[in-house]
């Protein structure tokens, strides 16, 4: 989250591409001339009908009447931000999809091959401990520290899996929350 925040802030402050500004003039139909849209890459002070509408479809005296009906707007965008955002989003989505495929398909197969069938069943029984003192164990055991980093990661992942399983039970199975 911090990374995404930092990157997006950086992108927001990147200097604008010169192609990212335009002056858009919309001119409605006038006499026999049909409606037209003119785009030009000019700056704010030049964004008016006389600079943008080229070639001018009417002559001489009609130019003023024609230009009065036109509406010119100055617009600016940041294509770098858009590109960066889409790339960040797609990469996070891709990573999540890979992790999801790993969790649902690959991990049971790997576990079964390494540990055998019985271990898998035993893991599932640990969930849903209903003793009144179970929560107390959780609260007090958090103060114990594990020296091994890998053990810590494994422990955190197990705890997260248990939490998600509890959430899934509440939402999807028992329909207790968020129905």
């Amino acid at each position, binding site marked *: 989250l911090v990374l995404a*925040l930092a990157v997006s802030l950086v992108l927001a402050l990147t200097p604008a591409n010169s192609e990212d500004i335009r002056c858009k003039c919309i001119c409605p139909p006038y006499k026999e001339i049909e409606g037209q849209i003119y785009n030009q890459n000019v700056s704010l002070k030049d964004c008016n009908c006389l600079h943008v509408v080229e070639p001018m479809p009417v002559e001489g005296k009609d130019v003023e009447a024609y230009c009065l009906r036109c509406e010119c707007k100055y*617009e600016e*965008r940041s294509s770098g931000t*858009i590109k960066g955002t889409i790339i960040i989003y797609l990469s996070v989505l891709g990573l999540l999809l890979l992790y999801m495929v790993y969790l649902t398909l690959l991990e049971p197969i790997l576990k079964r091959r390494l540990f055998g069938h019985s271990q898998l069943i035993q893991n599932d029984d640990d969930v849903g401990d209903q003793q009144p003192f179970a929560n107390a164990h959780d609260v007090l055991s958090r103060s114990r520290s594990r020296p091994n980093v890998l053990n810590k990661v494994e422990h955190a992942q197990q705890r997260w899996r248990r939490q998600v399983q509890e959430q899934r039970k509440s939402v999807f199975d028992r329909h207790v929350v*968020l129905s």
Partner: protein
Amino acid sequence: MEEDSADPYLPYDGGGDTIPLQEISRRGSNYAMSNGGGAAGGVSSSTHLLDLLEEPIPGVGTYDDFHTIDWVREKCKDRERHRKINSKKKESAWEFTKSLYDAWSGWLVVTLTGLASGALAGLIDIAADWMNDLKEGVCLSAMWFNHEQCCWGSNETTFAERDKCPQWKTWAELILGQAEGPGSYIMNYFMYTYWALAFAFLAVCLVKVFAPYACGSGIPEIKTILSGFIIRGYLGKWTLMIKTITLVLAVASGLSLGKEGPLVHVACCCGNIFSYLFPKYSKNEAKKREVLSAASAAGVSVAFGAPIGGVLFSLEEVSYYFPLKTLWRSFFAALVAAFVLRSINPFGNSRLVLFYVEYHTPWYLFELFPFILLGVFGGLWGAFFIRANIAWCRRRKSTRFGKYPVLEVITVAAITAIVAFPNPYTRQNTSELIKELFTDCGPLESSQLCQYRSQMNGSQAYPEGSDAAATPGVYSAMWQLSLALIFKIVMTIFTFGLKVPSGLFIPSMAIGAIAGRIVGIAVEQLAYYHHDWFLFKEWCEVGADCITPGLYAMVGAAACLGGVTRMTVSLVVIVFELTGGLEYIVPLMAAVMTSKWVGDAFGREGIYEAHIRLNGYPFLDAKEEFTHTTLAREVMRPRRNDSPLAVLTQDDLTLGELQAIINETSYNGFPVIVSKESQRLVGFALRRDITIAIENARRKQEGIVLNSRVYFTQHAPTLPADSPRPLKLRSILDMSPFTVTDHTPMEIVVDIFRKLGLRQCLVTHNGRLLGIITKKDILRHMAQMANQDPESIMFN
């Protein structure tokens, strides 16, 4: 100590008075507030030193999942902390810096939350727009641009066809090679449906595997959390990430849902995560909820580009306790979020939301009548939607329909995509539809809604310029709009409540905008063909456009949104901040008030309160009034036939008996009395605190066996010499529980619960303990009085 007198939470200071009491078995009594955490009450007595030597037991003072917090205890803890920091302030420069940091940490949290909400909202907006157009085609020159951005710099756009340019290729062009014709139509149809199904399937799979709490709108649960409920994991990191990602997918799949409710949830997640960086907020549940109120204001602010509307929404709809300090901080959070979103500039024209309208034509008094009619429509639709949606959700909850969430999402997405594609008004993004309906027809517009026959060749009665007679183009547009209206009304009922992030604001506004535009065009045609009626001749000059159908669309949108959510002030402020039309406040207010009155005639709850009741959350609504004349003794437990109240005596129990009481009952707390004969109240002890204290004592102290005496007094009772070591549990005892007498009217009891945020209240009779009233009992009683099912209240 300055903030105590001005604190609107509690009318009195929470502790510190010494009330001596004649007691035989207790010495040196003082009625100080002993909080979980073990901080001493600050009253001097001979036993004060001993209290200080006891360490606070870790874990006492935290709450279980799906339980309610104790607002009074949390507020007292916070004041303790503040007192401690202030008293140390003068000692050294380091302490002074710490106190400054403590005072300013609130602003820091709120700023970070605003920054994060703005950034995430920008990401969601850009990604949702791009993926939405991915159903249609691709931009070959730059794959990351959506349709509008792809054709931004091209010169081939014409007046009539504003969005055709050669860089944007539809799927039919890419796959088949041709852009027109029945074959390419079918191919476009097929690809549209395929992408919609793929996005919906991905969204529901991600939600199911990673964060099941990320589904739904989030606002009912956030309302409950802000009123004091705990749902662990609901505002966590994984929920935040999954909600952001799947919200984009759900919006892009064409389902009839919006982003606003989920954006409030996302903002609250950011607020929760940042509050964990500061111990002032992470350890105190009441202070955390202040941050969450500010975060929800930031969420609405980025959803609509309406900072003031966001603050008012947070005040009116979401928050439970809203002290004035939170008002200023919420406003700041909303402004920071809006500023960040603006600087990311997702839409390329420096507007925060798409719907900015710029017309300033006046409205006339006779138009109030169709506006009120739109208000009535909004109220009726709101009541109908709430009933239908709750019935469908109840079905999903209790029958086998709810067993297949993934299948349900795919089915709804398939039906939506298949029916929506042929109609150009439902095929496009709902936000773009609303913008098109809000925009008034001027000479520069070329949509099908604006094809009027111009009377330039002049017939006798009307000089040139009155181009208000409708061509067949407008009539076909009206047909399509009516079909779109029916489609949206039906599909939104089934879409809100699916297991993907779904919001309600944009579909309701779309329904209202369609209805409003139809009414507006009808009134315009009426004015044109019957310009000699009294009404029109009085106010409308011949030849001028006096009716703006875009305004009717705006009023209709506000009316429908008000009818379904029953918002009042915040809705009006949001709509006029959205559209910039300050002149139109009176029509908006007329329509919103009418829709609220009509909606209230059918049922007092808005959609969020109805979902809270459906889920059985323990939410005591501050807007409902309790008007019955029952007394406290009719609601309290135990009732006449029940088992007697489970109480603990202050120094009579052994550890074995205590554990037996805890194991055999499932109550959350136990009153502590002096002895079984006198039944006089000492205090209240919570189950969770007792179990944690016993575990801790077993681990840390030696010699605690089942026969050890457990005492809640200051000094141990006299025991024979060979008895095992006694266990002192005084530090977890709440010595000032709230009590009412059995003759207190329930109106006052409900008021006390609401205003103080209590969980339970003890009932005494002539000074002796008689029973207990919990929040669940009150909710059940209210449901019973309203003839609803009292068993649907599930949580404590």
